């Protein structure tokens, strides 16, 4: 019998099973990111449109969105998460994280979308209106496709940023990649191997977004 059998084991090494644990956490990172980026982008496009058409929106909505853009995400998360229990409405970490990330994303996308709309010259919109298109038809068939092409690179940057920033939701206790890695590091005391694996997971999640965006950009070239 070796000496180790008599001592209490605090730490156990990294095991194959832990990969499954990390993969599950990566799934959670993917879930919260997909929800936040998709809903946040749709909201952001609406906000961007509002910023474009209304001076009032530019003042009021613009200021609110500025707060979301300017206050560090981790502070927003902690404030929001701890605010609701005060009202007697405790929120799940996942729900709180989603809501904050959605508004954070929408604030970033709003400016990108406004830029996209404004990339379509007024003269072109007059041309489409002069053909008898309604405002909405002009928006749908002319402004959206041209604006979307213009905003794609900036939007991709936002999406990649939000995917990585979702790591901050770990402070609320949501079991995503970063939190899973912290748990494993505490148990195994092998930070290098675990962080390397987590980094690889993040890369695997980000890479398709960048790749897809590059593909779209190529397909959408005007010739």
């Amino acid at each position: 019998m070796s000496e180790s059998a008599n001592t209490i084991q605090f730490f156990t090494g990294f095991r194959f099973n832990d990969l499954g644990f990390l993969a599950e956490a990566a799934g959670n990172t993917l879930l919260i990111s997909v929800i936040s980026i998709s809903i946040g982008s749709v909201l952001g496009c609406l906000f961007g449109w509002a910023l474009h058409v209304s001076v009032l929106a530019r003042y009021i909505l613009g200021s609110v969105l500025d707060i979301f853009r300017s206050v560090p995400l981790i502070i927003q998360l902690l404030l929001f998460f701890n605010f609701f229990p005060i009202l007697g409405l405790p929120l799940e970490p996942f729900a709180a994280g989603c809501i904050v990330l959605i508004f954070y994303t929408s604030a970033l996308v709003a400016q990108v979308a406004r830029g996209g709309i404004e990339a379509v010259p007024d003269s072109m919109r007059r041309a489409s209106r002069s053909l008898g298109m309604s405002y909405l038809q002009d928006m749908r068939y002319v402004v959206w496709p041209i604006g979307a092409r213009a905003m794609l690179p900036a939007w991709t940057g936002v999406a990649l940023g939000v995917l990585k920033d979702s790591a901050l939701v770990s402070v609320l206790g949501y079991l995503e990649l970063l939190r899973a890695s912290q748990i494993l590091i505490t148990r195994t005391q092998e930070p290098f191997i675990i962080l390397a694996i987590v980094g690889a997971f993040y890369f695997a999640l980000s890479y398709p977004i960048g790749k897809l965006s590059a593909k779209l950009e190529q397909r959408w070239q005007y010739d």
Partner: protein
Amino acid sequence: MIELNSVNKSFGDLQVLKGIDLSVAKGEVLSVIGASGSGKSTMLYCINALEQIQGGSISVDGLDVHAKSTDINKLRQNIGMVFQQWNSFPHLTVLDNVALAPKIVLGKSADEARSIAEKQLQHVDLGDKLDTYPTRMSGGQQQRLAIARALAMEPGYMLFDEVTSALDPELVGEVLDTLRLLREDGMTMIVVTHEINFARDVSDRIAFFHQGVIEELAPAKELVNNPQRQRTQQFLSKVL
């Protein structure tokens, strides 16, 4: 018939149209000449309700353009407009540029819209460019595309706003030739232009604009060859 009755139009404090009276009959070609800023283009925008007016009225086929009850989108289907900037839709092929509005505004099927577009594009001599993207074409070709795009709505009237002003000199001819073609087709047109000789040869009448009023309105050859008003004479002596 397009009729303007003492039309006033201001941008803020600046009054750009001061009581314009004008009527253009079916089949007529009217050219509008005058210095930049004289209100020529603004008048076209008002006729197409792309700009509001502050006084007077404009009617097209008896329909009050600026009345609240008027369906603006319906009205515009009847009034084609081509601009100084050709404004091709860069994300669509030449064919789709022309087919888009018939499809979504007139509700034509994809096949119908396609055959309408093909016909119009052949008419402006772009029949071999159907699947090209407009950014690959010259300004003259894109301007002809813009004309075909407007014609595809089968409008009763066409408004042309300095359609050759942004073109390289060697490309002006092909666009003017297209306008001549429309004239032969019997299209009713208002042509704002700086091409005086073209205006003289192609239009029935010419209106000379000066600082927001119609200074002189006469049959085309008369106005160019024998202008009555001093300001018209001065303007023509500068540009001819």
